[in-house]
C-alpha cells in the first residue's frame, strides 16, 4: 500500500471514528497493517494536534487542562481499566509546549489517549465537508509537525523516500516495477538518471 492509499485508509478510519461509526472504524482499523502502525500513529498525532490547537490553543491553560483531565478520569477510569488521565493530559502538553512528554508515554498507549481527548474535544456533528477540510489541514500540518514538535528533520519528508530498488541497478533496464515505490511522484526518473552513468 503506497503513501496515498495509506493516507486514504487513515482518513477513512478517522472519519468513521469521528462520526461515531464504530463498526466501520473497527473494520478499517483491522486493515491497518503492522508496517503502517508508526505511520498511522503520526497521522493520528497530527489529527490530534489539530484538535488540541483549535480547541485549546498553543499554550493551554494548566487549570483548564486539569479540569479536562479530571473529566477524562471520571469518564474512563475503572479499577479494572487502568486509564491514566495524566497520560492523556501529557499528550496534549506534548504537542504544545512539552515535547519531552512524547518520550515518556508508551507508544502502544498513545493513540488510545489521543482518541480519548479527541472524543472529548470534537464536535459530534462534523459533516463530510468539515472532515475533508480537517484532513487536508492534517496532511499539510504533518510535515510541519514532524519538523517542529519532534525536531527531527530526517523524518521530515516521508514523500521523498528514494526508490531504492531502481537506484541499485546501474545498467539500463526496463523499469519492471508496475507499482510506484511508496510516494514516489515519478518512478521512472531514477532509472533515466542511471542511463547517463
Amino acid at each position, binding site marked *: 500500500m503506497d503513501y496515498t492509499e495509506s493516507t486514504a485508509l487513515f482518513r477513512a478510519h478517522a472519519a468513521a471514528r469521528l462520526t461515531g461509526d464504530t463498526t466501520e472504524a473497527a473494520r478499517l482499523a483491522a486493515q491497518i497493517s503492522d508496517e503502517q502502525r508508526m505511520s498511522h500513529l503520526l497521522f493520528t498525532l497530527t489529527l490530534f494536534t489539530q484538535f488540541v490547537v483549535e480547541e485549546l490553543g498553543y499554550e493551554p491553560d494548566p487549570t483548564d487542562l486539569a479540569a479536562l483531565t479530571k473529566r477524562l478520569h471520571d469518564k474512563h477510569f475503572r479499577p479494572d481499566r487502568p486509564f491514566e488521565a*495524566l497520560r492523556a493530559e501529557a499528550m496534549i502538553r506534548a504537542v504544545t509546549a512539552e515535547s519531552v512528554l512524547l518520550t*515518556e508515554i508508551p507508544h502502544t498507549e498513545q493513540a488510545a489517549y489521543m482518541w480519548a481527548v479527541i472524543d472529548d474535544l470534537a464536535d459530534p456533528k462534523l459533516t463530510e465537508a468539515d472532515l475533508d477540510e480537517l484532513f487536508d489541514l492534517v496532511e499539510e500540518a504533518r510535515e510541519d509537525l514532524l519538523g517542529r514538535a519532534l525536531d527531527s528533520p530526517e523524518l521530515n519528508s516521508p514523500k521523498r523516500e528514494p526508490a531504492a530498488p531502481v537506484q541499485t541497478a546501474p545498467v539500463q533496464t526496463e523499469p519492471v516495477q508496475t507499482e510506484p515505490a511508496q510516494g514516489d511522484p515519478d518512478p521512472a526518473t531514477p532509472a533515466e538518471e542511471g542511463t547517463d552513468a
Partner: protein
Amino acid sequence: MTPEALHRTHLTALVTGEVDTAARLRHQFQAKDHGIAAEHLRAAVAVVLEYRFGPGAGLGAGLIDYNRLGEFMTELRQAGRGTVPPPDHLAVEAVTRALYGEPHLAEPLSEQRRSQAHYSALAHELARHPWLKANPEHLVHYARKRMTTWILGRPED
C-alpha cells in the same frame, strides 16, 4: 521491634537514604505493613513538598502552582537523565499534584509505582535540604503527625 518502631525506623532509613537498611526492615513486614509504610512515605513527601509548594499538602490544599511544578519536573528530568531504566517522571507529577487537590491522578497507579514516585520526590527534595536528611527524626515526627491527621480527620490532641 513494635510495629510502630518498625515503621519509624523504616521511614528514617528512607529519609537518610539507607535503602539497604530499609529493604532489610521490610523483610519483617506483615502483609498489612506495606500499605502502612506507603502511607508513612506519602506523609513524609507531603511534609517535604510544603517547603516548595506551600502548606496543606494532602490536607485540602488547592491546586498546585503549575509554574513551580514545571520547575520541579525540569529539575527531576535533569537529575534523572541517563538513568536506566528511565524514571517514571509522570508518576512523580501524578503523586505531587495528588497532594494538591487532584487526588484522582494517583488513583490509577499501583501501590508500587506510587511508592516509587513518592520516594523519587522525597529523595530529590532531601538532596536540596541537607539538614532534613541529617536530622531525620524531624521529618519522621511531622510525617507521623500528618498521618494521624489523615486517620483521625483532625490533628492529635
